[in-house]
């Protein structure tokens, strides 16, 4: 029952959701539309559960006085303050917007920028044309990179057209082949979930 009921739900809802697109039957269409409308509510709860998990991890850090536990105290304080402010005053509040713009936006763009710096250094240290495949990858990447900026055009006027051709012909062919093959894989995984063969989402235990 603890495993068979969820699997039954998965089979009924999964198959119902597929046939909902092809059959005009109110007995099928209305419940499936209702289930789709539930998803924003259920996934919102899932997000909150995830954040509770984050607080739990940092609570254990504080309890066991692990190195850097003071950062976990800061995390708790800031997170609860942001939640209290946002839930009471709303996201259009001036203070909330201030925190969002000047802490979250500044921090996340900086972390992305730091990633870009490491990308540049990995270009120097790791991207080696060691065999035919790697050489093709590097040449294609370099031409596409040059085609994306005005300096490519300044070096040789046809570079943007070459980059465009690479994107539209060989890249398109390769991506389509990957898409069709991975599409088959995706369809297989979905079918396995809907037919009850894959049950890994239930987790361990009884």
């Amino acid at each position, binding site marked *: 029952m603890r495993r068979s009921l969820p699997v039954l739900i998965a089979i009924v809802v999964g198959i119902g959701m597929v046939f909902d697109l092809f059959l005009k039957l109110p007995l099928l269409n209305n419940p499936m*539309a209702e289930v789709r*409308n539930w*998803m924003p509510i259920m*996934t919102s709860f899932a997000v909150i559960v995830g954040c509770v998990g984050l607080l739990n991890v940092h609570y254990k850090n504080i309890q066991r006085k692990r190195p850097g536990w003071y950062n976990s105290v800061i995390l708790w304080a800031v997170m609860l303050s942001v939640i209290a402010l946002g839930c009471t005053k709303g996201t259009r509040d001036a203070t909330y917007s201030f925190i969002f713009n000047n802490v979250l936006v500044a921090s996340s763009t900086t972390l*992305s920028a730091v990633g870009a*710096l490491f990308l*540049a250094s990995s270009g120097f240290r790791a991207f080696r044309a060691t065999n035919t495949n790697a050489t093709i990858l590097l040449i294609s990447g370099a031409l596409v990179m040059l085609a994306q900026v005005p*300096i490519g*055009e300044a070096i040789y006027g046809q570079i943007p057209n070459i980059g465009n051709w690479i994107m539209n012909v060989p890249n398109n062919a390769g*991506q389509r082949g990957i898409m069709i093959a991975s599409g088959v894989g995706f369809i297989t995984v979905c079918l396995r979930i809907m037919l009850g063969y894959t049950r890994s989402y239930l987790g361990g235990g009884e």
Partner: protein
Amino acid sequence: MNFWEKMEKVDVRIIFVVVIIAIAIPLVKPLGLPMKVMPMSQQVYDYIEKMPNGSKVFLSFDYGTGSIPELEPAAKAFLTHFFRKGFKVYTMASTADGGMVSQMCMAGFEKLGKVYDKDFITLGYFAGGEAGIAAWSADAKKVFQRDARGTPIDQLAMMKDIKTVKDFTLGVTVNSGPGGYGTVEAWVRQVPIVYKTPFIVAPGGAMVANTIPYIQAGQIQGMIGGLRPSAEYELLLKEPGLGVAAMDAQSAAHSIMIAFILLGNAAYFALRKRPGARQ
């Protein structure tokens, strides 16, 4: 140690400093390199230009705060074009960050004289990813009971005639890619294929290459993929903005990146040829 051995062992922090200086120089002294408009950007511009004035369009801010410098130029260019054509614009977001970003972006247009619930509305964040997209497409008022400003959806004049996504003439997603929310694939699976609503995407860099098959298959009407196409779109609109301003620095950044790859490979091949060197 010879030159190539020194190259191989160079401190990574020196590389970082070189990259930062290389990007900073054209930001201080712009080069003004000319740029031609490529067919993909022209295709999107022409498609929107041919749409009748007053059309209803929706734009979804499906990116996080980390992608703002990359994707905001595209979002603003689309919105500029939409307002120029007198479209009724409906904005939303499938990411929590995107909900705030859409509010900030639209506040800028409101300062320029666009009127809320006459020219545009901000529906805000919808949860659920692909399921949320499917639910919204089937019944727009079920997913948004209120807009981002807290107004009940039934009280909004612009939502009066909206039932499903078929009531829109065009949909756009400005999308930073996979992350459990409304990805490009999710939008394509749920909107243009099911409801035949024309769709344009503005994916982040990582998603551009694998969005091209959708265009060639006719599933979507076009793509503004990355910073250069956004800059080209700004040029077509004759309103150079963030995209155009960044292109010189972007040129320097790409040149440095390619130079590093060539240098690294030169060092690798030079050291590989040494007698007794490991292969």
